[in-house]
C-alpha cells in the first residue's frame, strides 16, 4: 500500500473500475470492521456461554477428568500399534457436541484476537518508546507484552482453534537389520582389499595426523608467557622504600598503633601482585617466630596483600583482634604470629616482608617476601 493518504473517493473510483486486486483502504477498513464485528459477536456469545456453563457443570467435570492411568505397561502394551502412520487413526480429543465445539471456537477466537491485538499495540508502543528514548522499564514491558502476546495467541490457537487429536504411532526400530550391517561390513572390507599398501597408509597417515595435531597444539603456546619467571618472585628487593599508591614514601612516623596502609615497592607502584599491607601494632604483643624477631621495627609489620587461598585482596583489618580478613572467603590471619591462618579456608600464612628503618626513619624492605606471593601451586615450595 502507498504511504500517501488515500481519499475515499479515489478508492471508490478504483473499485468502480473493477480493479479488484488493487489494494484499497476502504476494503481493508471494511474487513477490519467485519473482524471487529465478529469479535464483538464472539464476546457476546461468550457471555451467554458463561451463563450456560453454569448449568453444564456435570458435563464439564466429565470432560475434564480423563480416565485414570493404567498400571505400568509391560514390554508389550495392551494396545497394538497401528500399522499406518496416517492421521486417520488419530483420536479426536475435542468435545463431541456441536455447542461445545462452537464454544471452543468462540473462546479461542476471542482470546487469540485479544492476544494478537495486545501484541500489536505493545509492539507499536515499543517502537515509539525506542525512538523517544523511553526508560528501560517502558521498553522492557512493551517488548514483553509484544512477545508474550504473540506467544499467548499461538498457545490459544493450539488450545482451542486447532482440532485436538491424540496420535498413537508405532516407534521406529532403532537398530538396523543384521543384513544391512553385514552389507556395510562387506563394502568396507572389499574397499580395503582394493587398496594397496594399507599398512603404509595406516602408519604414515597416523604419524602425519599426529604431527599436524602437535603443530596445531603448539600454537597455543603463544597465548601465555612462561609461568616460572613470575610465580616464584619475592617481589621486593633489599633496600626498596615502602610507597603509597601516590608514590609517597612511608616513615616510622606514618602510622599510629592499630593503623594500616597499602604500600608498594618503589619499582612497581599500583600493581596487583606487589600490593603489601603495612600494619603498626604494639611491639610488646608480637609473637613472631624467632628468625623474624628483627623484621618488625617499632611494631611495623608488612604482609603480602594477596590472599594465599584464592588470590583476593586481603582488604580488611580488625585492630582489636589483630586479624587480617579476606572478604572473598573470610579467611583470617593472625598478624602478631606471622599472619598464620586462624579460620576460614586458607591454609598458608601470608608472606611476610622483613622491614627496617634507615637512619632518617624511612621504612625499607630488608629483602623479599618470606614466600612466593598469591595462591598456592604445585611447585611453590621449591
Amino acid at each position: 500500500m502507498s504511504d500517501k493518504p488515500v481519499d475515499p473517493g479515489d478508492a471508490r473510483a478504483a473499485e468502480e473500475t473493477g480493479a479488484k486486486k488493487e489494494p484499497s483502504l476502504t476494503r481493508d477498513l471494511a474487513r477490519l470492521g467485519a473482524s471487529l464485528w465478529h469479535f464483538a459477536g464472539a464476546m457476546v456469545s461468550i457471555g451467554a456461554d458463561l451463563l450456560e456453563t453454569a448449568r453444564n457443570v456435570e458435563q464439564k467435570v466429565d470432560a475434564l477428568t480423563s480416565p485414570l492411568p493404567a498400571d505400568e505397561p509391560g514390554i508389550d502394551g495392551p494396545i497394538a500399534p497401528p500399522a499406518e502412520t496416517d492421521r486417520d487413526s488419530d483420536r479426536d480429543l475435542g468435545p463431541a457436541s456441536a455447542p461445545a465445539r462452537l464454544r471452543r471456537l468462540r473462546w479461542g477466537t476471542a482470546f487469540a484476537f485479544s492476544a494478537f491485538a495486545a501484541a500489536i499495540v505493545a509492539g507499536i508502543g515499543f517502537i515509539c518508546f525506542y525512538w523517544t528514548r523511553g526508560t528501560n522499564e517502558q521498553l522492557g514491558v512493551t517488548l514483553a507484552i509484544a512477545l508474550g502476546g504473540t506467544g499467548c495467541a499461538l498457545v490459544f490457537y493450539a488450545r482451542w482453534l486447532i482440532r485436538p487429536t491424540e496420535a498413537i504411532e508405532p516407534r521406529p526400530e532403532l537398530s538396523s537389520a543384521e543384513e544391512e550391517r553385514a552389507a556395510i561390513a562387506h563394502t568396507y572390507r572389499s574397499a580395503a582389499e582394493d587398496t594397496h599398501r594399507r599398512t603404509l597408509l595406516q602408519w604414515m597417515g597416523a604419524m602425519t595426523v599426529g604431527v599436524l595435531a602437535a603443530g596445531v597444539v603448539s600454537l597455543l603456546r603463544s597465548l601465555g608467557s612462561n609461568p616460572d619467571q613470575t610465580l616464584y618472585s619475592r617481589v621486593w628487593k633489599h633496600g626498596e622504600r615502602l610507597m603509597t599508591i601516590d608514590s609517597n614514601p612511608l616513615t616510622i612516623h606514618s602510622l599510629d598503633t592499630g593503623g594500616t596502609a597499602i604500600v608498594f615497592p618503589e619499582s612497581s607502584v599500583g600493581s596487583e601482585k606487589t600490593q603489601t599491607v603495612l600494619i603498626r601494632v604494639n611491639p610488646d604483643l608480637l609473637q613472631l617466630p624467632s628468625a623474624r624477631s628483627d623484621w618488625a621495627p617499632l611494631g611495623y609489620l608488612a604482609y603480602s596483600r594477596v590472599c594465599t587461598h584464592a588470590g583476593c585482596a586481603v582488604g580488611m583489618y580488625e585492630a582489636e583482634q589483630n586479624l587480617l580478613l579476606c572478604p572473598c572467603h573470610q579467611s583470617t590471619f593472625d598478624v602478631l604470629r606471622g599472619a598464620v591462618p586462624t579460620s576460614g579456608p586458607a591454609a598458608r600464612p601470608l608472606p611476610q616482608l622483613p622491614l627496617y628503618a634507615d637512619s632518617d626513619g624511612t621504612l625499607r624492605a630488608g629483602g623479599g617476601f618470606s614466600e612466593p606471593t598469591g595462591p598456592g601451586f604445585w611447585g611453590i615450595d621449591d
Partner: protein
Amino acid sequence: MIEAVGRALDRRLGMARFVREAMNHVFPDHWSFMIGEIALYAFAILVITGIYLALFFNASDAEVVYHGSYHALDGLRMSAAYESSLHLSFGVPAGLLIRQMHHWAADIFIAAIVAHLARIFFTAAYRRPRELNWLIGLTLLVLAVGNGFFGYSLLGDLLSGAGLRVGYAILLSIPVAGPWLAFLVFGGTVPANGMTPHMYAMHVVVIPALISLLLGIHLAIIWRQRHTNYPGPGRTNRTIVGSRLWPSYAAKSLGLFFLVFGVIAMMGGLFQIDPVWIYGPYNPVAIIPGAQPDWYLGWVEGAIRLFPGVNLHLGHWLVPELFFPGLLFPALVFLALYLWPFFAETLSLDDRQHHVLLLPWQQPFNTAFGCAVFMFLLVLLVAGADDFIAVMTDSSVVTLRTLLRILVFVIPALTFVVVYWLCLRRRARHAQDKVADEAQSTVPQERPQAGEGPSLGFTVRVRPD
C-alpha cells in the same frame, strides 16, 4: 505461494518425504517435556541478544580514562571493555534492556538445563537407548556454565575481577600442569593484557559453536529416537503417543518460544542484573565485600568456603587447599553424573531399551539418592552466601560455617531417608490399589445405579490406610 516455493524446492531437493514425515512427527504432551524446550529457546534468545551486544562491546584490556554519559565515574581509569559496557548501558537506546535480557537469559538457560536434567534423572529417561543424549546434555551444561562465567567476567568491573582472580587461582592449583594452564588461559597473572580477548573469543565463537553443534546432535538424536512417554493408557515400548508436529505441536512450541522471550524481556526491563556501574571498574587494590558468583557456580563457591584449610604436601610438591573444593569436587560431581546411566544399568542388570518413563516413586533408591545430592548442592549454594547470611542474621561467620559444615551432611542424609520412605509408602499403596482393582474387576460389585445419586463424572476412591 508457499505451495509454489515448496514445489520448486522439492523438484530440486526431493524432500517431500522427509517433510511429510516431519509434519506427522509425534510429540508427547506433558508439561515437563517443555523444560528442555525452554533451554533451547533461551539459547536462541542468547544468540539473538548476544549478536546485538557484540556490535557495541569492545573486548580490550587497554586502559582508558572515562568521560562518558555516566557522570558518577567521570575521570576514572578503566578498561576499554568496561567503558564500552557503560556506553552500552547508558549511551545506546535499549542497550541496557538487551544487556539485562542477555544476562537473565543466561541464568534461565542454565536453570532450564538443570531442571531438564532433574526431570530426566527422576523419570529414568537416561536409560538405554538414551545414554548418548544424557552425555551430550551434560556436556552442554558444562559448556553453558563455562560460557556464563566468561560472559560476566568480560565486562572488566570489580566483581568480575574478583571472580577471575578466584578462577585463576583454581586453575593454578591443578597439580603439575596448573601454572602452565593458568598462564595460557589468562595470558599471565591476572589482570593481564590479553585475558579479555581470550575470554571474548571463547565466549562468542568457540563455546557457542560447540553448544550449537552439540545441541543439533542432541535434537537429531531425539528426532531419531522419539521422545519417551509417561506411563499411561496406550503408552508402551512400541508406541509413541502425543500430538503431531504440524500444526498443533508447532503452534504450542512456537508459542512457548515467544512466551520465554516475553518473560526474559520483562525481566530485562524490570529487574536489574549485574549493575557494573555500581561495582565500579576493576582495581587490583579495591575489595568488594559480599562478592558471589552467579547462582550456577554458587555451589562451588560454597564448597570452597566450607572446605577446611588443608594443604596436601607430596614430598616438596604442594596440592593447595583450593584444588579440592574448587576443581576436584565439581569434577567428581560431573564424573558421577556422566557415569550414572551406566552405573544404574549395571546395578539394575537392565540393559533393555526403555521408552516408557518410570515415575519417581517407582525407583526409590534413585529418587532418594538424587534428592539427597540435590539437597547437598543446595546447602553448598546457601554456604556460598554465608557472609551475607551472617550479616543479615547478625551472627558470626565462623559459627555459621561450623553449622553449615554439619548440615551439609545431615540434611542430605535425612532427605535420603525421608524420600526413600515416601517412595516405599507410595509403592505399597499402589500395590494395594492394584489388588483392590483386580478384585473389583473379577468379582462383580454392587454399583450405584444411575439416578441413585449425583454423578460426578469420576469415582471417589476411599483408601484404607
